[in-house]
């Protein structure tokens, strides 16, 4: 099992001319202008803002599904993301440090209402920093 960042797709965020960063990237940023560069969040750790364990999950989603909103500190600039926790039994709390870990398929792309080809299904889960 290999999950070193260099072998996996980046967790792409966008940086804008005013220094702000968003995940995901948007065509136009909070400053009203196009992004100036991409930031790979998988190289950073984050802090848990809040979490939940969802037990009423839609078709193709693991049950229970533990989720967290986390905040990365990218060289002093905060940027938030949402994602599954690697462990289905919640093992984090507000304020804990987590790191992104790559998953090739976060939910079954064939089971839900969203068209499979319209979006990516891989991404990053979070796990406590050892």
């Amino acid at each position: 099992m290999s999950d070193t960042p260099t072998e996996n797709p980046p967790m792409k965020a966008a940086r804008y001319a005013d220094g702000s960063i968003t995940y995901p990237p948007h065509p136009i940023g909070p400053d009203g202008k196009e992004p100036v560069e991409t930031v790979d969040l998988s190289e950073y750790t984050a802090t848990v803002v809040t979490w939940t364990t969802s037990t009423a999950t839609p078709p193709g989603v693991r049950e229970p599904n533990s989720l967290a909103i986390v905040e990365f500190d990218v060289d002093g600039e905060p940027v938030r993301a949402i994602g599954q926790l690697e462990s289905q039994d919640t093992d984090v709390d507000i304020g804990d440090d987590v790191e992104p870990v790559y998953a090739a398929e976060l939910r079954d792309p064939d089971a839900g209402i969203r068209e499979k080809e319209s979006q990516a299904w891989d991404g990053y889960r979070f796990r406590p920093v050892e």
Partner: protein
Amino acid sequence: MERVAIIGASMTQFGQRDAWIRELLAEAGQACLDDAGVAPDAIDHLYVSNMASGEFEGQTGVPNALAHDLAAMPAYTARIDQTSSSGGAGTYAAWQSVASGASEMTLLVGGEKMTHRTTAESTDVIASLTHPVEYKHGVTLPSFAGLTARLYLHEYDAPRESLGKVAVKNHKNGVDNPHAQFRKEVDLDTVLDSPVVADPLRLYDFCPITDGSAALLFCPESVAREYTDEYAVVSGIGGATDTHVVHERADPTTMGGVVNSSEIAYEMADLGPEDIDVAELHDMFTILEFLQSEDLGFFEKGEGWKAVEDGVTDRDGELPINTSGGLKSKGHPLGASGVAQVYEIYKQLTRDAGDRQVDADVGLACNVGGFGNCVTTTILEAER
């Protein structure tokens, strides 16, 4: 600009219905015309608030279907989809059509048919409004509620029980609403012991899946007087959006769309939160009642839970919230809910709310789509 009046209102029985979307819409539409004593051929504009009849039922083109079923041709018609806030957005469209002078009689009908789908399927239809980075993780609207509730309780030192008390209050109110899906009181222990749906929230923190429809009839105030002496005026209305990606909001416990839409509505009505006598808030999840009651300016940020604890928002309290039973007990047929909120305020202001009646001259409805993604705030004033 002439003021816009509401002269008729209706809602169908909410709950698990045998009727499909066309029948539900026609039922409320016809009842609303009957309520006001207005003939179908008087309708200039006909709006249908509906999120997903195509996805739920495979029936699209519902505005035209309704125009035909009500014999309202050749009325201009359109479907208004703004997810859970389709009813609020429809109220805005209906108000705009009359305020602009484009229509002298506008019928708005909101409805949704959902219960033939499994809970998992319905949850997925609703969750399909999310951004791909949310959807791929299996993020649902209930999970946003769990995430936000945990943070709210943590930030403001609110007890878990206070959320449960929202459910207890709204279920109690729903007992007196003949159209509500649930007309049964629940006690706090039942709420707190119910199965976990999105920790820390449990089954009774969530509204049910519902079929139903509601309707309102709008016209210029000068026309209103031809039909009735007692009506309500849309004195303020505002719509606003917040981020599509929910985690990008600076403060997850503040709904920017509620703040911004209500500021517009208050300014138009020349009123403030202290002037509101009764309010219908979008309690799709118990936590939303706290967030809206704060972001509408009724209570300080982080203090909304205390108002529920103190009984301020009870039917006999200083500011009754969700006298209808709210989405919580009344049910939440997506496109109908925003219309049914205004229905309740209209009934309160025209003193036709039966056992739910409170003393009110000014009422507010706040309809929320997504997790605060789109919001319409509407203020009505009684004219007697």
